[in-house]
């Protein structure tokens, strides 16, 4: 250790030592340390390199606002980039690396960029790299050449390509009161709301509740603040109605008082418990929210303000008081307000030498003077720091007199050797969540800060968030917010006894110090992205005046800390350049997330499981029989059941042939099935189908076509009349959900007077389609309790019976063009009936077939599916005009005859036969001339193709301009992507048995 560790302060557990690694070197720290505090304790000052200039950087803050000290954590061989060292709790086995440096942190070749600082000014890349207008580097080529290098120089940490193996979970929560932040205000609010009996969630981003009480050094109710806070937190956790979430940052404030928070469950332990997530994504719906998120201290912009060793005063104080680490041995403070004096006194008490307190103000409060005296060191009023010196660590500061009007430091220089500079430029309330939830924040001239806007959703503010400047005020406003959130009234009484010095709560309006000599080093505004005060002024010169333009042109505030430390100083410099006030210069709206969140946490349980598998009752049977499964929406369906050594084509041709020549069976359980019941069911179907259903006899099925309101085809399918007022509608697998919603909307919104009830019964039934010339023979063997002869079960007829003890409903339907039956049974009997049917079909050589054979059979018949019903076709395009009833209006009937929908030039359904004996390719286009050499205009496209076993040719369906008029013509297919060109003949889409004699067999 470097002697930076103090023996008596902080919440670290000095009895439990932890060993961890940073950049390959082993260090030790204590339980309770962050990586930042542990490395500081080890005397490490250099944490990383900046984005653009690769300048050496230390740690600026002690919290979630850290822009500089970002590291990569390597866990189980997986990298997590850009983790603030200030947020990272060390644990045994922790491995970390610094970022954005090559070959090493101490020697980084990228730092050469600093030499060209003036060229790499804000927005320089817009002005160059365009390259030559003509020649080999014309167009975008020169830029892309340069960009290759730029991309490699940019970026921070490196991400893996190997899959993350962590798990993430979501938690839905409901509460009366959500308190965000567990500092004094949050604790008081939670206590008040809990005492009123409300369900309370208290969220704290740190591992330990207490907020500033953990390090303020104040006394509350006669106890050290840290002790008071832990007592309060303990009391709260005894309440049944309070849930305390630590390591949880609330990052999003969405509509309906829905807030999102990230709990880091497993990052601080060496190995997670079984089943525990790494991160838990909390979605909290709160009655009322109390925002007690505190405030962020602001840096001051001055030359050399980014040298490692320069940090926020509160951070320095916090390292000493909360972690027992002195950030330096000889410390100077630089401030425009009184809060830094508290830090000075605390640092001094912790054992640091205070070299000087440099204050931009000429006059300070008596309380501050007392603290300065306590702290020791020179008190330099009306002065400012105009330069820092040292290499990769601070060695000293240069102090000069400050002209308060121009903000320029000039005159005699005093150089003070220090190894740490603690600065304070005032405080900015953490209004991010409030800003997400509503309007623009309001500028407060006294505090020189933006205060939260008027609430647009039910939230209350408390503490420093709301502009409170003393802990007494904070406790009072916290308690009052808690009481109000609980539905009670605020009280004016003192919330707790405080023992704190009287200080001036308001900072001087000083944001930037300019050196009279011009070049004394870069004055950083956005530390991570290297945006300097000069960059802001350049943006001003070039007319990028709006705060949004400033942000976009210079990248100010776009870093991983999202401008927590840089927004207000940047805005102040722009306002100054424009000669207007800060609120006139504007403010940006904050967007979620308040602080970065892992993508995995938001995917939660869907990580690794993005969508549920939807399985038919016979799924396991298919898989056990070696079916190659394919996704169809969420469903898994058998594609082919191939024999060893078979190609896809050989398999489906064999399967299809079996159906045409004998009998086959396919799982059709995925079809959408909707029970349409009620006295007005027939009337309803007449309205939604283009054809009539009220004339359908009970015990019969009919093919139906549905249009959308705009007159285009929505879906097709058969609907079965099971009873006078009882219909079973089937839809295509893909459109099931869409059709259901379409029907429900019509019924609920437009025709509420119809007595019709709809219920999805897709899952109630298992369906097996038995097709082929021998299909009836199979049923004759399998089905008991009913005859299946042509008389009893004619085409489109329905009968009920039993298969091996299970009840079945059989409809004689055909998608394949063969004699075919759909056998439906209760889904729980699906496999039982399926196997019984196969057994019955064994003498006839029955085979199960998959989607490819199903497709082949339907292409041969010219039946349409989703490939043709693509949302752009009309019934006429598909030559289904015959289904458009002229006797009744139906959904779409009034819109289907519009000029654009009856245009001669529309693409319409045809059949296509390959003339060169080669496969056609779904996705190929149809062109008029051979387009191998010269592209031809497409006159349409293929929708499906197959090798037809009955025609012994490659055939397909296509949508082609002119449609029927082209029957008999030759054309070409063009599939440049697969380099397939060839002659085809355009024919009727009814390739096989156009009279339908086989289905009636």
């Amino acid at each position, binding site marked *: 250790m470097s002697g930076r560790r103090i023996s008596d302060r902080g919440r670290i557990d000095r009895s439990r030592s932890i060993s961890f690694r940073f950049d390959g070197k082993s260090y030790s720290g204590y339980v309770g340390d962050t990586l930042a505090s542990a490395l500081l304790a080890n005397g490490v000052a250099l944490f990383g390199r900046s984005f653009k200039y690769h300048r050496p950087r230390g740690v600026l803050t002690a919290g979630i606002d850290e822009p500089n000290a970002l590291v990569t954590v390597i866990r189980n061989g997986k990298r997590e980039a850009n983790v603030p060292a200030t947020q990272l709790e060390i644990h045994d086995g922790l491995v970390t690396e610094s970022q954005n440096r090559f070959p090493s942190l101490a020697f980084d070749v990228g730092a050469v960029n600093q030499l060209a600082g003036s060229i790499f000014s804000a927005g320089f890349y817009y002005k160059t790299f365009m390259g030559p207008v003509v020649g080999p580097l014309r167009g975008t080529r020169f830029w892309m050449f340069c960009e290759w290098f730029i991309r490699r120089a940019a970026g921070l940490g490196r991400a893996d390509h190997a899959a993350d193996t962590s798990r993430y979970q979501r938690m*839905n929560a409901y509460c009366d009161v959500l308190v965000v932040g567990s500092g004094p205000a949050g604790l008081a609010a939670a206590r008040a709301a809990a005492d009123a009996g409300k369900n309370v969630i208290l969220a704290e981003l740190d591992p330990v509740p207490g907020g500033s009480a953990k390090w303020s050094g104040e006394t509350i109710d006669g106890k050290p603040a840290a002790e008071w806070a832990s007592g309060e937190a303990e009391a709260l956790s005894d309440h049944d109605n309070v849930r305390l979430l630590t390591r949880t940052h609330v990052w999003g404030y969405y509509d309906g008082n829905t807030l999102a928070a990230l709990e880091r469950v497993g990052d601080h332990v060496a190995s997670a418990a079984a*089943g525990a997530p790494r991160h838990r994504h909390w*979605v909290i719906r709160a009655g009322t929210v109390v925002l007690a998120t505190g405030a962020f201290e602001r840096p001051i912009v001055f030359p050399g303000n980014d040298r490692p060793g320069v940090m926020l005063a509160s951070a320095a104080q916090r390292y000493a008081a909360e972690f027992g680490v002195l950030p330096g041995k000889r410390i100077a403070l630089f401030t425009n307000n009184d809060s830094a004096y508290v830090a000075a006194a605390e640092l001094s008490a912790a054992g640091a030498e205070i070299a000087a307190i440099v204050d931009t103000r000429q006059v300070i409060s008596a309380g501050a003077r007392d603290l300065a005296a306590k702290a020791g060191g020179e008190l330099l009023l009306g002065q400012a720091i105009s330069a820092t010196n040292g290499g990769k660590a601070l060695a000293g500061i240069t102090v000069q007199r400050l002209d308060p009007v121009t903000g320029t430091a000039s005159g005699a220089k005093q150089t003070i050797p220090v190894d740490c500079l603690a600065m304070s430029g005032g405080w900015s309330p953490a209004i991010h969540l409030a800003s997400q939830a509503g309007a623009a924040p309001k500028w407060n001239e006294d505090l020189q800060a933006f205060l939260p806007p008027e609430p647009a959703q039910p939230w209350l503010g408390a503490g420093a968030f709301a502009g409170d400047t003393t802990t007494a005020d904070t406790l009072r406003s916290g308690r009052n917010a808690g009481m109000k959130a609980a539905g009670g009234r605020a009280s004016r009484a003192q919330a707790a006894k405080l023992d704190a010095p009287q200080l001036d709560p308001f900072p001087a309006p000083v944001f930037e110090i300019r050196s009279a000599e011009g070049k004394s080093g870069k004055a950083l505004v956005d530390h991570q992205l290297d945006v300097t005060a000069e960059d802001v002024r350049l943006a001003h010169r070039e007319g990028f005046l709006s705060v949004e333009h400033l942000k976009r042109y210079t990248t100010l505030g776009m870093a991983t800390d999202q401008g927590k430390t840089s927004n207000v100083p940047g805005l102040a410099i722009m306002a100054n350049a424009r000669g207007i006030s800060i609120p006139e210069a504007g403010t940006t709206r904050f967007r979620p997330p308040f602080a970065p969140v892992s993508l995995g946490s938001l995917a939660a349980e869907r990580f690794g499981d993005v969508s549920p598998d939807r399985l038919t009752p016979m799924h396991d049977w298919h898989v056990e029989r070696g079916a190659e499964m394919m996704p169809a929406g969420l469903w898994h369906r058998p594609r082919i059941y191939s024999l060893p050594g078979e190609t896809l084509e050989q398999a489906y041709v064999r399967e299809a042939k079996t159906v045409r020549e004998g009998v086959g069976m396919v799982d059709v359980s995925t079809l959408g099935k909707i*029970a349409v*019941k009620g006295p007005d069911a027939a009337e309803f179907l007449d309205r939604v189908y283009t054809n009539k259903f009220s004339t359908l006899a009970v015990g019969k099925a009919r093919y139906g076509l549905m249009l959308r309101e705009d007159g285009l085809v929505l879906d097709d399918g058969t609907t079965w009349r099971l009873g006078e007022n009882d219909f079973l509608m089937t839809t295509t697998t893909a459109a099931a959900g869409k059709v259901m919603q379409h029907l429900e909307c019509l019924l609920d919104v437009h025709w509420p007077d119809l007595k019709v009830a709809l219920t999805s019964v897709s899952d109630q039934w298992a369906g097996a389609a038995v097709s082929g010339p021998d299909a009836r023979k199979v049923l004759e063997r399998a089905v008991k309790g009913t005859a299946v002869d042509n008389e009893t079960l004619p085409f489109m007829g329905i009968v009920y019976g039993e298969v*091996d003890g299970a009840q079945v409903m059989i409809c004689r339907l055909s998608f394949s063009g063969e004699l075919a039956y759909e056998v439906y049974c209760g889904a*729980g009997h699906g496999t039982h009936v399926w196997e019984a049917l196969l057994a019955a079909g064994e003498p006839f050589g029955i085979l199960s077939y998959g989607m490819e054979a199903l497709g082949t059979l339907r292409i041969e018949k010219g039946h349409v599916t989703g490939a043709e019903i693509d949302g752009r076709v009309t019934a006429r395009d598909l030559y289904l005009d015959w289904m458009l009833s002229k006797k009744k209006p139906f959904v779409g009937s009034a819109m289907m005859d519009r000029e654009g929908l009856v245009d001669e030039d529309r693409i319409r359904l045809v059949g296509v036969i390959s003339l060169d004996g080669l496969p056609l390719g779904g996705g190929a286009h149809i062109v008029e001339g051979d387009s191998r050499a010269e592209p031809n205009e497409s006159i349409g496209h293929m929708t499906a193709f197959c090798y037809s076993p009955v025609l012994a040719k490659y055939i397909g369906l296509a949508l082609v301009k002119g449609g029927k008029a082209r029957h008999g013509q030759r054309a070409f297919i063009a599939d440049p992507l697969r380099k397939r060109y060839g002659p085809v003949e355009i024919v009727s889409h009814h390739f096989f048995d156009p009279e339908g004699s086989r289905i009636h067999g």
Partner: protein
Amino acid sequence: MVERESPLGQAYKPGRHGNVAEAAGVTLSETRPGSIVEVIAWPGNEKTALAAIKSATGLALPDRPGAGVSREGRAGYGFAPRRWLVIDDREGAARELHKAVAETTGVINDLSHGRAVIRIAGPRAEWVLSKLFAVDFSTGAFPVSNGCSTSHHEIFAQIQRTGKNQFDVVVFRSFARAFWTTLCHSAEEVGYEVS
């Protein structure tokens, strides 16, 4: 009678799983009732439909959104306007309800094969279900015997609280295995027993 096959298949693994450091937080099971029936009333016929449910099943369902009754072997609750779900251990409830509900009152749908019922019971049942459903499962908001309709992404679910620490989740049969797997996954943190 042919036995109904469970949709859970190999995903159903009896025994103790997940975190075994402490007692199992939840017990998961598939209840496999004989009947799952939906009763729908025409507008204005709610009372008649409820009376019909009572006469057929003995369940006196209150006429309030989501209200229900949960008894040993038999349960029912409202899950949508004018719609109730009746779950009975015995087969044949659909037939009885069909008889009891007149055409002028409403209709019924037999969903006995089409839905699966998954039971989660134990002290951490609320916690585990809260990972998957955006519904307030606290007893104040969701009293015993009440039911609701909700969904976990693509999976539609009807949930009834059948005990202080027990919920029966009704899902579409085709999604049952996926839901079961997700539920098991979510229960690992608290440790679970499959019975």
